[in-house]
């Protein structure tokens, strides 16, 4: 049952009228003493961006999941990250040259606007090509700029050769 705050009607409510006034004064003074204790302590504010001893970026822990980065030199185009991403913010296109039978990456885009920084794409990457950086400053005035393109349009890049063990893993992944 809902009851209104008629405290006088409730039996056992602590204190008399003057007792409660006394309580109020004591408890307020006690609270004030707590806040006063903080007056002389060092402030904990981090003076981002320019008045920090080190840039904030460098103080972040190693595992921090910031904006994604790709090392094209170690990417084997196994597409494991594209498959692992639940929302499809990674787009990879691979073409096969019919004559030389070689595979080329023609597109590797990561939409960091859509990305949710969950780290699920980093886990399956066999060579550690895709990884989260400590970068977190990405504000732009146009949402188009938030697409990171790792292969310039029109170009094609030969993927790195997977090491044997990695190749098996990647193969098992694809099946």
């Amino acid at each position, binding site marked *: 049952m809902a009851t209104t705050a008629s405290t006088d009607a409730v039996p056992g409510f*602590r204190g008399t009228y003057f007792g409660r006034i006394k309580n109020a004064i004591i408890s*307020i003074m006690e609270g004030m003493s707590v806040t006063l204790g903080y007056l002389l302590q060092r402030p904990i504010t981090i003076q981002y961006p320019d008045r920090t001893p080190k840039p904030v970026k460098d103080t972040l822990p190693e595992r921090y999941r910031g904006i994604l980065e790709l090392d094209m030199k170690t990417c084997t185009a196994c597409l494991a990250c594209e498959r692992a991403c*639940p929302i499809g913010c990674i787009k990879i296109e691979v073409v096969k040259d019919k004559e030389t039978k070689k595979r080329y990456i023609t597109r590797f885009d990561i939409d960091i606007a859509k990305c949710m920084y969950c780290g699920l794409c980093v886990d399956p990457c066999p060579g550690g090509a895709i990884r989260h950086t400590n970068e977190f400053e990405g504000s732009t005035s146009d949402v188009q700029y938030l697409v990171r393109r790792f292969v310039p349009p029109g170009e094609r890049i030969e993927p790195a050769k997977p090491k044997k063990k990695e190749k098996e893993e990647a193969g098992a992944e694809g099946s």
Partner: protein
Amino acid sequence: MTEFITEEMTLNMGPQHPSTHGVLRFQLTSDGEVIHSVKPDVGYLHRSIEKIAEKVTYHGFMPYTDRVDYVAAMNSNFAWALTVEKLGGYQVPERAEYLRVIAAELNRISSHLIMLGVMAMDIGAVTPFPYFLRERETINDLLEELCGARLTYNYIRIGGVSSDLPDGFRDRALRFLDHFEPIIDEFNRLITYNEIFVNRLANIVIIPREQAIAWALVGPNLRASGVKWDLRKDEPYSIYPQVEFDIPVGKGEVGTVGDCFDRFIVRVDEMRESSKIIRQCLDKMPEGEIQSKLPRQLKPPKGEVYVRSESARGEMGYYLVSNGGLNPERVKIRTGSFSAMAIMEEVSKGIMIADMVALISSLDVIAPEIDR
């Protein structure tokens, strides 16, 4: 004496209102200061998570569980991992269980910090909130070291956790707890037993035991009504049976059992218990693997499970139906805030408008947990 003629008035509160804890809307019908009825209007943050669950994989749904309850995301992760593990019968290494519990309890503390700070602010005490945000930053730093994110952790994986403890984490966590436990006492001195604060919460909106059960209240709200029920203790999962802790229940310290003050103080006490659990886990943690070997593409067998676990806002249940394929057939998430919001309509009849704010914040509702 002539009778003073009054008439009913309809008020709208929210959805953009500073004390509604996210986007909630209330239609109040009041006669002067006395509320006749409250109709909560939710769904302003209905993000179709249950439908998305049918489109993503079992691993891929984990980040979404973060967003079901963003203040206690780790507990939400935990619940989903428990559900899929039960459905598929997957094993979890012991060290991973300890890591999960440490992370979940740290997160429970930070969730209660937000709740207590916001509640104090809604009542009119602004100071505790920045104090608690400061403590929360330290927890965020610890969790950030552990899993790489401050709020949406995605740390717990099906069959384990994503990463082991970083170097020096144990010392830093213990140092934090040494620092934090006196902070709770300091908080009690600062605000909890302040006469004005107590008067605004004691005997306000009492929810008796039977009503709390019938309306399916869970977690701290239920315990505040005097029901000693905690899934961590009574239906133990993970390594909770191996650690010692108490279950704080509402005692009616300054008023009646089940009033707003009990809902407040239960959470204060729970932070102490969480701190105890973390200390024990850090001591007992064995060495070993943190992730059992599971295929990248999970295909749990056909079937259905309903698994409950104790989140910061009470019981979090996942009802999962699997068709044996890559994606779940149906996921229904049962959350504590949903039923806490449902009871609003019943218990707010006849209370004052000023007590309404105390009621909302004492129930500790989080908008996406209601709406999902």
